[in-house]
């Protein structure tokens, strides 16, 4: 069952939205780029399981930003390529 919101509730909500937009955390994903990406030192699981220098890049299929399949090997074919894992947080 849908409930009707009161005009006061609308006012509270819309005011709070504006306030929320104004707040931005200092530890943001959009901080200055170009520095170091995280703690130093190798992660053992990466050393054990990750791609290794001198090996072929893994033959994996992932997706582009529209959801279409793309091959890591095809993307890196005939060009130098950099692949970096990341996310919003």
């Amino acid at each position: 069952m849908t409930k009707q919101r009161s005009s006061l509730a609308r006012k509270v909500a819309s005011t709070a939205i504006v306030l929320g937009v104004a707040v931005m955390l200092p530890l943001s994903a959009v901080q200055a780029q170009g520095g170091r990406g995280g703690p130093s030192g190798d992660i053992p699981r990466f050393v054990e399981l990750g791609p290794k220098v001198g090996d072929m890049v893994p033959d994996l299929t992932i997706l582009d930003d529209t959801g279409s399949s793309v091959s890591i090997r095809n993307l890196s074919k005939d060009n130098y390529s950099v692949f970096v894992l990341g996310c919003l947080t």
Partner: protein
Amino acid sequence: METVKLDYEDKVNFYYIYKPLAHPEFQGYVSPINLKERLMHIEEAKRRLGSSITWLSDTMDNTYHQASGETPNSEILVGPDGVVLAARSWSDPDALRVDIAAAVGAVENPTQIADLNLPTQPVIGTVAKGIVPRVVKPEGRFLPMETVANEETAKVPFYTKLRAEGSQELYETGKGIMYIGFHLDPLYRVHWNNEAPPLEFEISTPDGISITPNKIVGPDPEEEADADPREFLVEVDSAEAGGVVDLTVKYFACDDELTFCIPVQQDYQITLARDTSHGNAITTDADGNIVGGGNRRRRPGGEGGAGRPGGRGGPAS
């Protein structure tokens, strides 16, 4: 990373690969449950970073992430013949620049960060937070638990998303505390309408597993709207770890534009086992200050380190 890209983009292709959140709930972002939502995350990352680097998405079973040892922020440089020329656990644009220079030659006047003037966009705004107090977990580590949202029975998006965590004791013995949190997904721009009935959920368990309480009605604040997570602690008593329980949640989803406010019922399956593909949540207060969670190692020298998602150098790790 952007400076390296600008200096070498005519010789090197640069890609970010979007992976599971390293720190769910930080800045309000919650883990996507399907590809459509992961692509929404990428659009949000584009908006916030303003980077010109091409975004790709890992598959929903995290093919690339797993092949990288489930590292949060690793990077590789690949040559035209497909051979890996450099690989490191943590993205390091300075070191990457050296690697690229060794491969294709150095640029004379490297671009500086100050030259970029990249736009800085705020996180998505929401209605008031700090209305419903955050739950205080008992001492000890709480780690994410395997959860699967049942999309087949869902008629609308998962506007709020379940996060289940177990205590170390629970994973080791089958008995312990489980955290259950329902976090609004900011990408849907929704809030709790507290004039509607509060969120409630029920957990059904098979023989051999008991969860107490297994039926809970959430808080019903006086404030008419808020965006705080609805969080609960329950006790689990299972003969062994790894059992499966079903959770059904009911709530009202109301968008911030006030165009809809609808009753929603959605189902989850929870396996009482550690989910290693997702990072540990970072708990923040209403002002966004970190108050708990995260297991980032502290970088020698003090900078960065624990509880500092995002870091420097591009997308958050």
